[in-house]
């Protein structure tokens, strides 16, 4: 690899760093989910760079990994959002209606 700075590699590192910082410092569960997703985007960017560095056509294996990773991250995040909504609903409903 060249010593020339690669802008997207720096961006990936920045996403990872910022995501990590957010994960530690954010208290709101939604904000924390956002931070985790930013961290994940940094990881995906890394994988895409790895694919890009293959001479010739882009490497399909990391691409497949990223696609899988995105779907997993999104479904987990969607589930997390459902959790957050439920939590808020419960906090609001002081008079509960039972659980099940």
């Amino acid at each position, binding site marked *: 690899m060249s010593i020339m700075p690669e802008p997207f590699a720096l961006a990936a590192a920045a996403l*990872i760093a910022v995501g990590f910082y957010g*994960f530690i410092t954010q208290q709101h*569960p939604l904000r*924390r*989910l956002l931070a*985790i997703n930013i*961290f*994940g985007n*940094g*990881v995906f960017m*890394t*994988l895409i760079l*790895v694919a890009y*560095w293959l001479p010739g056509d882009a490497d399909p*294996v*990391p691409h497949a*990994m990223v696609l*899988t*990773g995105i779907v*997993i*991250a999104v*479904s*987990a*995040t969607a*589930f*997390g959002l459902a*959790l*957050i909504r*439920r*939590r808020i609903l*419960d906090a609001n409903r002081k008079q*509960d209606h039972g*659980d*099940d």
Partner: protein
Amino acid sequence: MTEFLPVLAVFIPLLGGVLQFLMGPRAVPVWPMVVSGATTVCALALVGSVTNQGDIQHMLGGWEAPLGIPLRVDGLAAVMLLLNNVVGGLVSLYALGAHGRSGAVNSHFWALWLLLWGSLNALFVSGDLFNLYVALELVSLSAIPLVLVAGPRKTVAAALNYLHFALFGSLVYLAGVGLTYAVAGSLDLTLIAGPLAEGGPAGHMAAACLIVGVLIKAAIVPFHIWLPAAHGNAPAAVSAVLSALVVKSCMYLLLRLWTEPLAGITVDAAAQLLGIIGAAAIGYGSVQAFRQERLKLVVAYSTVAQLGYMLLFFPMAVATAWEGAVYHGVAHGVAKAALFLAAGNVLLYVGHDRLRELRGLDRPLALSVFAFALAGVSIMGLPPSGGFIAKWLLLSAALETGQWWWALVLIVGGFLAAAYIFRVLRYAFLNAPGPTIEIEGPVPPRLMSWTALLLGVLSIVLGFTTAPILGLLGGLPGAAP
């Protein structure tokens, strides 16, 4: 036929869970029990054939490595499969008592539990770094909703915290996978050790990410903060599976990664650090367990502590330590399942699990208290039990490598465990004035009491079955026989 067994061990429960989702409450409990039985039989057949014929490998899609994904079952995987499916089968029987009635929530419970069971099997048979990531996610994302089965209101916060850590941990792991692929050009566990060792900083970074990611998911101190609430509030069957199998599967992965793909790159400082973390986990978890006021939280913090013992393998890294760590995993899995199931029976009968009010529990719930006590013996590492054998092996390893301080950790850890286990038993046997059980709930069905007791007995029996299990495990990978 035998090479199809790993696939069947994964897909019987996975497909069973999916079909349970399709069929809904009407299929409960017949269909889940059929699937549970079939899974157990199939997995035990797999373990049996590994015992007889050695390792099994199955290249998925017929593609050779590094293109395709291999399923591999070696000694370590076979031992974990044995643990997973024996405990899984018994937990299924217990759940027949607890969640055997028709109903939407129970239907979802069974679907998720079968999916989790299949996911764990998938994790143990996988031989591919990225596939392991998917399997880890499968395990987490079936485990977290299972926590909610206890009723969302009291578990939602725990589930959310669990999800945060699980998701973050697996992304850290994925970063490691990406870097590994960059350096090694392959994801097959057997092909990446060499390139990683020569990979320079990138290799080290990859190794660090893989290890830290798994540590987060395994709830190792200081990443444990999500565990007690999740394990302590889930339904008993789920708590048992989470503590006995789910975190254990992450520890399995750590052992596997460390001894195979990362074997050439691990440094002694990191190994010592892992050992220190393990010692910290033992101390912290045990003290916290002793301070808890709720039975299930005692058991949950005990898991935090017990996982630490497996980490003591890394600084010692000899065959004895390897056997000790794996055996500890097995013994703890069985014992912890028994503890949680017994605690579940208490919760069912009393309606709460506040320790101070559980006086004289051994009269109405003799079987469950006895199960708790038997499993407790193993947790304390006292003979005769599986936990004792593991402690013996680890102690021997500590002296063998001249690192006597780990021996002290083991001994002190045993005392701390005795402190919190006997504290629970003390209340159960206490026959003195004070807050007592107010409302007596239904006596747990026999099935639930006896499965707990059976697991308790198994944790004692493990004290005598060392030879076949360690024979199946085989020696430390990469070491001279």
